[in-house]
């Protein structure tokens, strides 16, 4: 079987990684700009629009991705990897650009949230098809014994995509006034996507089909019905289930905890200023990203299983101590206030709502702002707290998030190689995409909602460390996955089809 030269494979990696990174970027900017999007398209006083908002958040992230995996996976196993992941790239880029062009709810009414929902669903479908294609394409070009290393470049794209989305949003916010950003500037990150997609499309267009798939096609050994062969065949189905329950399920929750739960925990539970969270998360992600490559490379030497399982075990053991430390770092009840610097003001807005603002400064440089709104129409009062942390606490949080990203890199770095080696060429795209997107989209994607449920439940029960209860979900899922992975997965992959 002919394999690509080192120079050639760098071309393959660049073309594949850039496209996949852009897809992740597209997918994340919607989440990162969720607050402004909801004010433009989903007014909270309209129940139907609010319902569509929830659907857009949940459905695209969870339900649609596995469908995209099945649809594009089947296509990739029949017509080829190259054309399929070019189609997903264009679908994702087009949908993202169009979200940035939709007039607001005020201008076109109900059509606005409906269009956003449709485009968001298309984004989810495209994402479901992209990853399997890129991972398969790279693995099928990679030299024997180096698949972990080469596919790990694809694994960096999800984190880099998140990092770039945070940076583009921060740069746009810094370049514009808050009013301009709120009025039209939030659309810029969506428009930027079309330029990146255009460049990536041109690069991918000139690439060759995967040599392994091209050979199979020439010999007439490709599958006529990849879905039936993947899931209707007991021999293959048992590996799909093993991939899901022994690897991707745990990987999905570790990934979501390390990147998204950490972010929402700092913003909503610890009340750290949103821009500070974005910055420190960006630094931690940047520091952690090379480890995807390291663990991918290491998995070629020592096997995929023990690296992925070690990442899961470390996450299971250390999540609670890490989050306890994170919470304590910014807990103002442990800090000393400079009482002379306390400010309090009471204002009334145009709706006659009473707004009470209190600002406090602490000896270590932490500042605390609390705004309480008592509504004139007797609605339940709302309190918004924002804590600006000092540089030392910021670095403590960066370190604690970095440790979590390290766990992510251990479980995620080798997984593309692990999945592609598990299935034969003719059904590889379909078979590996489904467990990946069920593990990440559903088990991982449901993490924020289920963890929030645990936290709320614990808070209502009056538990002093209620904020740690949200971690039970990733800990339980990762524990089950760890036991299954350790017992049923062979470190010397006897089903290595590459």
């Amino acid at each position, binding site marked *: 079987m002919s394999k690509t030269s080192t120079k050639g494979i760098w071309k393959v990696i660049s073309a594949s990684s850039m496209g996949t990174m852009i897809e992740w970027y597209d997918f994340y900017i919607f989440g990162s700009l969720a607050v402004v999007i909801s004010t433009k398209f989903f007014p909270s006083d309209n*129940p139907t629009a*609010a*319902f569509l908002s*929830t*659907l857009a958040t*949940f*459905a695209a992230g*969870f*339900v649609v991705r596995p469908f995209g995996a099945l649809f594009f996976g089947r296509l990739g196993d029949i017509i080829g990897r190259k054309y399929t992941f070019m189609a997903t790239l264009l679908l994702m880029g087009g949908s993202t650009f169009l979200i940035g062009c939709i007039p607001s709810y005020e201008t076109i009414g109900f059509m606005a949230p409906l269009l956003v929902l449709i485009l968001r669903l298309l984004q989810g479908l495209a994402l479901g098809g992209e990853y399997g294609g890129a991972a398969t394409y790279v693995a099928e070009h990679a030299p024997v014994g180096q698949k972990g290393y080469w596919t790990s470049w694809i694994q960096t794209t999800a984190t880099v995509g998140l990092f770039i989305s945070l940076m583009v949003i921060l740069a746009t916010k810094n370049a514009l006034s808050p009013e301009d950003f709120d009025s039209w500037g939030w659309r810029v990150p969506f428009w930027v996507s079309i330029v990146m997609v255009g460049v990536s499309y041109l690069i991918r267009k000139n690439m060759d089909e995967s040599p392994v798939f091209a050979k199979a096609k020439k010999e007439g050994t490709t599958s006529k019905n990849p879905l039936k062969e993947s899931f209707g065949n*007991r021999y293959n*189905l*048992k590996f799909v*289930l*093993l991939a*899901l*329950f022994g690897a991707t399920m745990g990987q999905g929750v570790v990934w979501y905890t390390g990147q998204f739960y950490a972010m929402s925990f700092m913003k909503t539970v610890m009340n750290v200023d949103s821009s500070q969270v974005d910055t420190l998360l960006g630094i931690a992600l940047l520091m952690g990203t090379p480890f995807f490559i390291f663990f991918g490379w290491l998995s070629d030497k020592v096997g995929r299983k023990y690296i992925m399982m070690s990442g899961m075990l470390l996450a299971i053991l250390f999540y609670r101590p890490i989050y306890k430390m994170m919470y304590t770092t910014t807990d103002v009840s442990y800090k000393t206030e400079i009482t002379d610097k306390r400010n309090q003001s009471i204002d009334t807005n145009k709706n006659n709502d009473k707004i009470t603002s209190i600002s406090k400064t602490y000896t270590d440089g932490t500042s605390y702002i609390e705004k309480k709104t008592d509504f004139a129409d007797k609605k339940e009062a709302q309190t918004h707290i924002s804590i600006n942390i000092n540089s030392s606490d910021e670095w403590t949080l960066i370190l604690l998030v970095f440790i979590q990203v390290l766990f992510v890199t251990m479980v995620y770095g080798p997984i593309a190689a692990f999945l592609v080696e598990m299935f034969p060429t003719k059904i590889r795209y379909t078979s590996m995409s489904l467990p990946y997107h*069920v593990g990440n989209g*559903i088990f991982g994607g*449901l993490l924020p*909602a*289920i963890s929030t*449920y645990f936290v709320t439940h614990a808070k209502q029960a009056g538990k002093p460390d209620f904020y740690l209860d949200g971690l039970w979900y990733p800990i339980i899922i990762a524990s*089950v996955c760890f*036991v*299954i992975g350790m*017992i*049923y997965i*062979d470190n010397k992959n*006897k*089903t290595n089809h590459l």
Partner: protein
Amino acid sequence: MNTIKQILGVLWIILAAAAAYFCVFEFGLPKLLSDQQDDLVFGIIILFILTPLIVLGLGTFGYFAVIGEYNDKKK
């Protein structure tokens, strides 16, 4: 090792049944019957996506383990 794999298969089937109970009665139905829109969508996803996936998926995985599909000789 093969015996452990097969015995643990029973555990996965029991776990699938336990997960079904929690997903339906602890998470799904209470959310579905709640007045909140967010809860309704969450309840639908739990009941119609996550529950079948865990029950059928983990249950089938357990069944395969019990009948020795994951035993070394059969790979």
